[in-house]
């Protein structure tokens, strides 16, 4: 990076909050995905909106591209920046600005850690529902960029269903407010458009979220199954019964064994082909009735055993095993390729068979831990990236898994985003016209394409959207 740029950035945020030496930048070379790596040109850490605006204005003036980043826990390479790019880390903007319990709203800065928000409002009997597995570290700003999900999104919806208003710094350094605390937009639904735009439309500097009451009662059930297929069929039967569990999570044997061998051991039966974690919540009467219903379905679909968490501590332990499953796999191999795909729920049993076949053919270690209720799969491949031949096989297997999910009518990502990891898969699910529309919308917000460049949209596959009207104008 040019020294003049570094000086100018330092003048805005103070020299302490600008990093540019190689050793300092290494921290920012990756996000949560080990397969994409690049050092940014510089890292700048603004403390507030005024500093964000000043930094973005400077970068606009110099036409320097930039990437916004929260805690860097993303799993699609979305927060990775190239050497000509400035990384804006927003973790200093971590204040909860206002909480309005009567209206069930909170206004927060983007760097607030997901779990900390729920902790802070718990005394009011309220919670922020979307709970990605990385919630102890990830920021709500990052959740907004990726439209993050989590186990409890089955009943309550993903990030986009919980964001009502955003203050956004656009790439030209102007500031706009999208949406309203009520949830109705001033005009078209630009909040809905912004959430999940992977940091390519601008930087959210203030976020108004919807809060939900903490349910009066919760029941967590653990069921173990002799086959993955019977567990998948139980999932469909629960959904068809009319009960919407708060969460419905599945782990296959490889995943269970990894968890049980780790410090996160949750007491899952290691000889089960699959375990299901089902949670119902609501009023005590509702929980009683729904738990009985769900348990009946689990048993009639071949569960060997169904047990109910006996205490809050027991429940926390059951969930810890699920939420730390990715961490537990660290014992198996140094690296983990976390995949994220969605299939129609009814395709789950077949797709899991297919993944098993791909695993055997490539001689890989794959474990499945996933949001079964949503059909959102996470086949995770453990490997050592120092072995280039193995890394190639991992890439090939990932691609085959993704192709199988798309062929089953699914999508290439349910909650991790496209980033630079899945860009190549975009033409598998969107035609050139639709990709072109996305590219054109991106240019509405970011005409110079300087905001998180090189992510999500495989530009060569996008049909050009500007040419047609322009040519017509010329012809007139």
């Amino acid at each position, binding site marked *: 990076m040019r020294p003049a740029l570094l000086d100018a950035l330092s003048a805005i945020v103070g020299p302490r909050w600008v990093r540019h030496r190689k050793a300092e930048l290494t921290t920012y070379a990756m996000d949560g995905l080990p397969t994409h790596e690049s050092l940014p040109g510089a890292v700048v850490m603004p403390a507030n909106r005024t500093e964000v605006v000043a930094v973005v204005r400077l970068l606009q003036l110099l036409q320097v591209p930039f990437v916004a980043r929260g805690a860097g826990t993303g799993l699609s390479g979305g927060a990775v920046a190239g050497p000509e790019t400035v990384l804006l880390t927003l973790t200093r903007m971590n204040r909860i600005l206002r909480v309005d319990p*009567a209206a069930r*709203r909170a206004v927060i800065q983007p760097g607030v850690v997901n779990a900390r928000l729920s902790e802070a409002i718990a005394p009011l*009997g309220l919670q922020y529902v979307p709970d990605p597995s990385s919630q102890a570290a990830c920021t709500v700003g990052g959740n907004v960029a*990726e*439209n993050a999900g989590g186990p409890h999104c089955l009943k309550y*919806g993903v990030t*986009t269903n919980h964001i009502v208003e955003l203050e956004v710094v656009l790439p030209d350094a102007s500031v*706009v*407010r*999208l949406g*309203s*605390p*009520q*949830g*109705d*937009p*001033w*005009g*078209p*639904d*630009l909040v*809905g458009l912004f959430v*999940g*735009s992977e940091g390519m439309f601008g930087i959210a500097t203030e976020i108004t979220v919807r809060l939900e*009451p903490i349910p*009066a009662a919760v029941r967590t059930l653990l069921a173990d199954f002799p086959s993955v297929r019977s567990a998948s069929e139980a999932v469909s039967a629960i959904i*068809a019964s*009319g009960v*919407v569990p708060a969460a419905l999570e599945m782990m296959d044997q490889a995943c269970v064994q990894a968890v049980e061998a780790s410090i996160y051991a949750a007491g899952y039966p290691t000889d089960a082909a699959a375990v299901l974690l089902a949670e119902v919540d*609501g*009023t005590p*009467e*509702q929980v009683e*009735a729904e738990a009985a219903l769900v348990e009946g379905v689990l048993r009639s679909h071949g569960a060997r055993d169904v047990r109910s968490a006996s205490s809050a501590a027991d429940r926390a332990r059951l969930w810890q095993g699920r939420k730390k499953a990715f961490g537990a796999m660290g014992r198996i191999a140094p690296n983990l390729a976390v995949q994220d795909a*969605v299939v*129609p*729920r009814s395709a789950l049993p077949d797709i899991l068979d297919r993944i098993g076949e791909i695993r055997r053919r490539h001689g890989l270690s794959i474990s499945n831990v996933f949001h079964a209720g949503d*059909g959102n799969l996470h086949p995770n491949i453990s490997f050592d990236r120092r072995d280039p031949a193995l890394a190639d096989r991992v890439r090939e297997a990932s691609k085959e898994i993704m192709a199988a999910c798309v062929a089953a009518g699914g999508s290439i*990502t*349910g*909650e*991790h*985003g*496209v980033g630079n990891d899945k860009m190549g898969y*975009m033409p598998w*699910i*969107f*035609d050139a*016209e*639709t990709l072109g*529309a*996305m590219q*054109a*919308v991106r240019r*509405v*917000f970011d005409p110079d394409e300087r905001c998180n460049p090189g992510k999500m949209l495989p530009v060569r596959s996008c049909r050009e*959207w500007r040419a*047609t*009207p322009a040519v*017509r104008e010329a012809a007139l």
Partner: protein
Amino acid sequence: MIFARLRALLGPAAVDRDPDNVPRVTPASTDAIALVCRLACDEGWKIRVEGLASWLPPDAPADLALSTRALDEIVSVSPADLVATVQAGAPLDAIRRRLAEHGMWLAMDPPGRPDRTLGSVIATGTSGPLRHGFGPVRDQILGCTVVTGDGRIVKPGARVVKNVAGYDLTKLHVGGFGAFGILTEAHLRLRALPRADVTLVSRGSRDALSAAARDLLEARIAPAALELASPELAAESEWILAARFLGVDAAVQADVRRLPTETDAVWEQLPADRTAGFWALLARGSLGGPITFRLGVLADGLDDALDLLAHDLDAGLIAAGAASGTLRWTGEAPVERLRAVRRAAAAREIPMTLERAPWSVRRALGHFGAYREGLGHLVDRLRDTFDPKQSLRVALEGSEKSEK
């Protein structure tokens, strides 16, 4: 000339004239709509889109009308995946009947006729009382097919319940009033039919009922709908507050038992055979005047917003979600009065959306009126992207930009 060109393009069966003698096309496919749009864009013709012509009234000046009525197919229903794909011209009641055959249900109860087209619900973003428990229309739409003003076909989203691939362009079309293209098909999120469906009603003064609604929320009772309706709308002598509970039987019964102990109101449970009719009556009431708008209002701002309406407008048909964020008014009022309401609402940070009105009112006020600072530029450019020649006759913004 236009008439003949359209007939040559689509065949005579798909082209007739509306009561005002404007050529009207009724294409039977997305591709056919794309052809019409491409031609209209090239020729500089203005298109007016209509379903049943009740929410986007057929009086907007245009060179041709485009009806989605031939696009009425329920393309597929996948009960196990809780997803259905439906064309935009399909009537809601037909969709509902078809889903019920599979034990499925769509959590949408928009105002208007029971046979309203899906397209009109999505284009206007009009949610009903169930917004309280299931979220607005946007939360029920997983993806769509849209034809842009210049005839391109765009297909964002997918037939799965969870998906973050690509920008969520679908959101732009929900409540976009057709400004970003003509919706031809949508993927819908379904739910299994609830096992129990119970509605209770309380009558009384507006203030007493809104206090009862607040008490109920405070007590963490969670109905699927909690709707306050004006006497004119409910066809009763007093205001009413209606609470609808959906779910497993034991849970619904427990909530019903708690209602009288947690609120000061007197509740009457509607007999099962009257429940559907009651909600349909409230929904149809929204067509009881030429103009319908909604205000975005939170639970603690409801009384204030109702006062604002009482001050600026004659009594209208009012339905308000006590905590869902929507207050809907239907009635008759001159543009100046509506402008005054919008100004007063804006001063309270309350967005106002004109959902249904004659063209003269829509043109003057716009569906959204003036946006917040800085947004007009973005919306204009989005509109240019999807409708470069402004072929689609839509008044997003009012003809005067003097308001906030």
